[in-house]
């Protein structure tokens, strides 16, 4: 127990990220099921409009910040150091800090479901209810007097710190901790995409931090950053949010793209087609991702110049995305394909992501977007890219790397059930939404009338959602069964090309008994140019120093939610306590002997 609380081992932190994020994924999923149950029939009355607002807000916020980002982070943690031949990340304690901040931030946000009575309101009454994008000036105290938005903005500030800290850590890890011979152009695609993602994190998060800080000053200290009467414009929030928000969607998809770029070659037994192009288009997507944010704001009326520019950049960004898709297909082409569950998910990813990308391009054009924006059509888009894309990609990663992380293979039979149920379920749930939206049903409204003519489609969609839930249940059964019944994985169950497969599953604390020297991009494969490398010996030839754990990152992390409680409860001394805890944590951390 203590060794888990104080751990600084990237593998353990990776597992902690996984289980925590998966728990939040289940919570977000339950919220989605309630939403779908409410919408199963016209004039539904399962929940009130107020509860509905909280449900969709918490669903979106949870899935983005507490499920998908940290599930990706679980692979950054576990896999990246293994892929580059390192013994840990560059700053193991900072890594632990990131995890604890994430956990506490997530708990802080979700506590809002339960603590209504403390704020003289019922339970299920003070959860955030302004949408995951929290548009100003609806979020101002004047229009949202309760603590709902406070939970949201303080929770997001906390989570931002976690992501930023991890961002610096992984950038340095990938640039500076590569094994000898592991040049940048030999780094596996997943690690490359992790690097691009982290650059997006460290540049995009400060912008939302500022936007949220303004909101904080408005709500707690009576400032006017988004108050129209004071001469301000709420559009400022939209710009700051989407300046962050669009890079954020690439933060969500690039890791999944990286996973797929590693899974496909393994199961097609062919090197990734056009590795260099895949890497560069990932970098290009990262850059271009910064130049399209206003496509979320066409309905604001930005004027013809801005509309045209952002429409053009948005259409252009589909090009590097398309390039990647062709590379993946070409990787499969003529390959010696093994239809494992991981491959199913990877191929499912490609197919679903194409559909999501296409609907994206349709709302790149302002005139059509004006018909689509704020309707269920956009909901269809985001779920094809985020569920069909990110989640499918993450599941490909789970089936692929679970054996490495636990030493046991997930059941392929259950895996196939999981895949097909999820695949059918998601298309049933999200494809009808295209029509529901085009027929005129707005998003974020808690019910609809039968006259709209979308009742059957909505029912279909709800059935799909419950199929997805069933598929996730199958996955959980698979996880549990694997603990005891899973086949032993050995070092390398798949015949992978990259370094993580050269060591035991799960790897020993020190990862590599001897740091490997890398001579090419596919070190463990035999190609026309080279023989496979020799795996490091099972026992280290010389003793290896492994850093001990530390309590202080966790202590420092606790300072943040305490600090956040101060404005929430209007208690000054909590701010002082929070700051003191944070400082104490940092000082103890800085001065404790800790040799990496």
């Amino acid at each position, binding site marked *: 127990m203590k060794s888990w609380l104080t751990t600084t081992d990237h593998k353990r932190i990776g597992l902690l990220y996984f289980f925590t994020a998966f728990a939040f994924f289940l919570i977000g999923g339950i919220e989605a099921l309630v939403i779908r149950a409410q919408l199963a029939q016209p004039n539904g009355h399962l929940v009130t409009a107020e509860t509905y607002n909280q449900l969709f807000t918490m669903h979106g916020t949870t899935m983005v910040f507490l499920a998908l980002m940290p599930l990706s982070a679980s692979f950054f943690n576990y896999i990246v150091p293994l892929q580059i031949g*390192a*013994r*840990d990340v*560059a*700053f193991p304690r900072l890594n632990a800090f990131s995890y604890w901040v994430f956990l506490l931030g997530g708990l802080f946000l979700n506590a809002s479901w339960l603590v209504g009575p403390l704020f003289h309101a019922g339970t299920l009454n003070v959860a955030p209810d302004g949408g995951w994008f929290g548009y100003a000036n609806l979020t101002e105290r004047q229009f949202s007097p309760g603590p709902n938005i406070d939970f949201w903005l303080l929770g997001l500030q906390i989570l931002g710190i976690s992501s*930023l800290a991890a*961002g*610096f*850590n992984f*950038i*340095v890890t990938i*640039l*500076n*901790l*590569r*094994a*000898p011979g*592991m040049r940048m152009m030999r780094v596996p695609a997943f690690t490359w995409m992790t690097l691009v993602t982290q650059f997006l994190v*460290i*540049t*995009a*998060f*400060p*912008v939302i*931090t*500022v*936007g949220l*800080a*303004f909101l904080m*000053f408005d709500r707690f*200290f*009576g*400032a*006017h*950053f988004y108050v129209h*009467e*004071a*001469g*301000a414009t709420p559009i*400022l929030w939209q710009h*700051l949010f989407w*300046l962050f928000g669009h890079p954020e969607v690439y933060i969500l998809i690039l890791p999944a793209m990286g996973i797929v770029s590693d899974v496909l070659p393994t199961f097609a037994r062919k090197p990734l087609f056009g590795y260099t192009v895949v890497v560069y288009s990932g970098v290009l997507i990262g850059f271009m991702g910064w130049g399209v944010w206003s496509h979320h704001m066409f309905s604001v009326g930005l004027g013809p110049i801005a509309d045209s520019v952002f429409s053009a950049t948005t259409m252009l960004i589909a090009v590097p995305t398309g390039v990647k898709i062709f590379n993946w297909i070409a990787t499969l082409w003529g390959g010696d394909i093994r239809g494992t569950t991981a491959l199913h998910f990877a191929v499912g990813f490609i197919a679903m992501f194409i559909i999501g990308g296409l609907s994206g391009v349709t709302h790149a054009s302002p005139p059509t977007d004006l018909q689509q924006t704020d309707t269920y059509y956009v909901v269809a888009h985001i779920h094809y890219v985020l569920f069909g894309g990110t989640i499918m990609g993450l599941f490909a990663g789970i089936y692929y790397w679970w054996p490495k992380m636990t030493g046991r293979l997930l059941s392929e039979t259950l895996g196939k059930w999981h895949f097909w149920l999820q695949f059918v379920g998601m298309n049933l749930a999200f494809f009808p939404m295209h029509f529901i939206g085009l027929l005129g049903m707005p998003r974020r409204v808690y019910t609809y009338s039968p006259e709209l003519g979308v009742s059957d489609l909505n029912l279909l969609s709800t059935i799909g959602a419950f199929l997805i839930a069933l598929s996730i249940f199958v996955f959980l059964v698979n996880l549990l069964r694997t603990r005891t019944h899973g086949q032993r994985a050995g070092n390398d169950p798949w015949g992978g090309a990259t370094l993580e497969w050269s060591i035991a599953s799960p790897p020993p604390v*020190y990862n590599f008994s001897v*740091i490997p020297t890398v001579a090419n991009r596919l070190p463990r494969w035999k190609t026309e140019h080279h023989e496979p490398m020799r795996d490091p010996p099972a026992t*280290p*030839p*010389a*003793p*290896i*120093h*492994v*850093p001990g754990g530390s309590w202080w990152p966790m202590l420092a992390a606790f300072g943040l939610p305490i600090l956040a409680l101060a404005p929430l409860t209007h208690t000054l001394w909590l701010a002082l306590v929070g700051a003191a805890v944070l400082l104490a944590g940092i*000082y103890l951390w800085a001065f404790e002997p800790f*040799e*990496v």
Partner: protein
Amino acid sequence: MTHAASAAAHHTSLGLDSRKMAFWAFIGSECLLFTSLISTYLVYKGKSVVGPYPHEILNIPFTSVSTFDLLMSSLMMVLALAAVQRGDMRWGKIWLFSTALLGLVFLGGQVIEFTEFVHKGLTLQTNLFGCTFFVLTGTHGAHVSVGVLWLLTLWVRALQGKLTQANAMTVEITGLYWHFVDVVWIVIFTVVYLIQ
């Protein structure tokens, strides 16, 4: 010495110090933070619907002195680094302390300035100028405070004999932070105070 330390601290793949690299990344990230604040200041410039307005209240001579003070603190900082690098801890301590002291003077100046503005009727709640001005310069001031705390910590460590030539990299990184904060002030001084 076949332990992780050799991999992490000594033979890094770029031959660069990991902490320094992380710090440069952090500074890059901070660029976006301050840009968002400065952009907002500029966007809302001249949009306040009630006074006081910038030209009525900003005290250029006073702030010029603060600016000079911060520039000099940057000089002290590099001198501290140079001293520590050549192992001259006596001057290292003196310069570190002077840097922190000048930082404190700057903060004192900011306190005086803010108090005066409040007396003249400019608060966070007054108008958009108040919002953007206080949050921008306040964020900068918070960065200076962190820097002062950090510098004083190093100074105390040096007094205790725990900060030596071997820790020159620590001083260098502290300097990176400190100079960055100075650089941000260079921009703020121009954009907020001189271009009204």
